[in-house]
């Protein structure tokens, strides 16, 4: 049995709204009338969820998250922490969303037909997020001040648009694919997992990375000097997605600054980065 739940903002929010309750888990076993004791923060004020949003059920009261498809329709660009620690079910967002979407989520699917703010999938452990628009900084990241490797641990994030800086900061597992371009420093403090940037990258991928891999199909402005050239690769497989990228890739290892074993791997397209061709000369040594 499928339950479709539609959530629409009643007004245009002027201050940030913290609505971590907007996730399928909240609605399990709750009829629309029982939602009155669910609260969100509007600025610093605690207000009932139903006061800020129109909520409409199509179907009966759901008994598990897997039955739920949550539709968020409208402008959610000021609403933060949507789907925080979500464990399952489907969420479809028709519009823009604010920061911290899918913070620490462990399962389920989120599809966004719009743009997303910063901190998408921070501390994510599992599940699937697909964004059709652009995304802000720190996708699948760790929070400020945390130890390297405290970012995304598992799950898949696919972004059809482009992303901001520090994609996969402190990432430990899972996959992030950016089909557009990204700003600087993807995979900073990375300890595992895979980042694919199909477009261009502003530079310095994998700074202080110890493990994991970063694939860049477009142009990279510059790489950090603490990576060394390992070999030339002809293809990169991302088995979680069943995708395979073919071409000529420079395989670099590092970051020597983070760890002497240099287990982090950068795959950088040679065709798009003629300014890095000089690195191939070092391969003869």
């Amino acid at each position, binding site marked *: 049995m499928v339950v479709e739940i539609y959530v629409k903002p009643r007004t245009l929010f002027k201050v940030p709204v913290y609505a971590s309750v907007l996730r399928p888990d909240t609605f399990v076993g709750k009829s629309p009338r029982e939602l009155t004791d669910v609260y969100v923060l509007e600025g*610093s004020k605690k207000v009932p969820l139903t006061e800020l949003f129109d909520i409409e059920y199509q179907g009966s009261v759901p008994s598990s998250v897997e039955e739920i498809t949550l539709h968020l329709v409208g402008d959610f660009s000021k609403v933060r922490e949507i789907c925080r620690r979500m464990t399952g079910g489907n969420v479809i967002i028709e519009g823009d969303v604010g920061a911290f979407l899918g913070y620490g989520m462990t399962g389920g699917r989120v599809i966004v037909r719009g743009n997303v703010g910063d901190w998408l999938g921070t501390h994510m452990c599992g599940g699937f997020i697909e964004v059709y628009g652009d995304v802000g900084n720190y996708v699948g990241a760790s*929070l*400020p*001040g*945390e*130890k390297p490797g405290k970012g995304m641990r598992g799950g898949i994030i696919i972004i059809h648009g482009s992303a901001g800086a520090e994609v996969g900061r402190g990432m430990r597992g899972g996959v992030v694919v950016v089909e557009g371009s990204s700003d600087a420093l993807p995979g900073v403090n990375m300890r595992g997992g895979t980042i694919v940037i199909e477009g261009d990258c502003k530079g310095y991928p994998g700074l202080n990375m110890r493990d994991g891999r970063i694939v860049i199909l477009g142009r990279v402005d510059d790489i950090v000097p603490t990576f060394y050239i390992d070999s030339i690769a002809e293809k990169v497989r991302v088995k979680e997605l069943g995708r395979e990228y073919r071409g000529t890739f420079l395989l670099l290892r590092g970051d020597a600054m983070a760890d002497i074993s240099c287990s982090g791997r950068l795959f950088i397209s040679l065709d798009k980065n003629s300014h890095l061709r000089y690195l191939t000369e070092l391969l003869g040594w």
Partner: protein
Amino acid sequence: MEILIRNGVVYDPLNGIEGEVMDIAIKDGKIVPTEKVDPKEAYVIDARGMLVVPGGIDLHTHVAGPKVNLGRVMRPEDHRVSILRYIPGRRHSGSGKTTPSTTVIGYRYIRMGYTMIIEPASPPIKSRHTHEELDDIPYVDKAMLPLFDSNWFILKFIREDARDKVATYIAWLLRTVKGYAVKLVDPGAGEAWGWGRGIGISLDDEIPGWGVKPRDIIEYTLDACIRLGIPHKVHIHCNRLGFPGNYETTLETIRLTEKFPILDRPIMHITHIQFNAYGGETWGNLRSASEELAREINRNPRVSIDLGQVIFGTQTTMTADAPYEYVLYHLTKWKWSSTDAECECAAGIVPYKYRKKSYVNTIQWCIGLEIALLVRDPWRVVISTDHPNGGPFTRYPWIVAWLMSKRARDEVMKKLNERGLRKCILPSIDREYTWTEFVIITRAAPAKLLGLEKTKGHLGVGADADVAIYDIDPREVDPSRDYEKLIKALRRAKYVIKGGEVVVKDGEVTRVIYGSTYYINPVVSPDLEKSVKAEIEQWFKRWYSVSLSTYEVRIEELRSVKEVKVISRV
């Protein structure tokens, strides 16, 4: 405002009162005889069955200054876990567990019944910043101790063997930056660190470029402080802090005092002694050396201590002992900051996690308590966690419980590293602090050590009206058994009165007031001061990046100042 505290169970060791049921009257910010207050007019607090004690004094807590602020910047994750919300008209918002923001420091101290705090390490050149932050901390009285351990003037005057100049310079600097006493951190290490050396330098290692030894720095400044008549003489963080086997250096430092006379109060305060009480040769065979140290302290009345008790969890170590932080960074491999204050000192910051199952951390936890329990004279012991190095000051109630209850200690020891416990004597110590001893080590002793026992740390007539009232009846509650009740009562005082105003009620702040900054003004011979100042001026032009006129912190820059004048023999 007139206040009458009725029928409380009063502990006031400075006046020899031990658990008497009596009334305390307050008028114009002072404690007055009860007949001076009219019960009909006064604000009456019914303290029946409650513990009434003087406000607490924290002798060693890093709460203000550039290094504390850098710690805040370095640890955003520490601020996310602890947030205080804004309550209109009563308090600001703030955050931070081990590195709280200024207002939060004030709220948390006053809620625990503490009314005076001492910031124990400030580079003289950064004093303005330290005072600005102290001024921003509400409720409590405060003072700060400037660092003299690697100061070029001190090193220069010692090299010239000019004892008068050392004393005059100390007097001038304390007055200029509004400091309260001399602080020495790992003497000489900061200067040696400027040359990439100074890791674990001992009393007899020469400081590069100066031909002066750490031993000389301690000896000359101690001599100067005694001649200046400063009440709280050197406040010292001993050499080789944090290294296995360092207890021998601590013993040698204590023995340095033997050539000086026994005065009315200790002349050397060894701070966070726990970090300086390690036996063994390596981290692998570390052992507690608290017995050796306690024996020496019991023998030598010139020395007082505070504990530097370790609390399990992630803390932020910050110290002017920059080379040691370099060592610690290589153990933790997370974050590290290292700074140099021109011509004066250095500092380092590293977050560190104390683990219950760790061999080393278990021994550290035991040492602090062992020393407190083995030193027989409570008047020379003060509670501290060296906030935030060993743990946040908010954990003091637990330390009190561990000292007052063997059962509370045993409860913690069940979860500790067993190999570590075998290197400690804590499991075999039965002593439990009494109520009076608890009040001494948190109130009366620090007041006495600071030389403020006339106005602080007691409840006699004429004392400042700083009173803490806890909802616990010492006649009924046996802290040895009911230590949970003790912790609960001490965490949030029922009432706190600061400067004659009720500022805490039922464990929550009621309104904001601000305390005063204490500083010391030793008066020395004008001729000597003139000649030393001329020398200072010359060096300032040559070596400092600021001019002498901007170096001085003027009284009008501070919110409220209390001068302590001492007439010296220099």
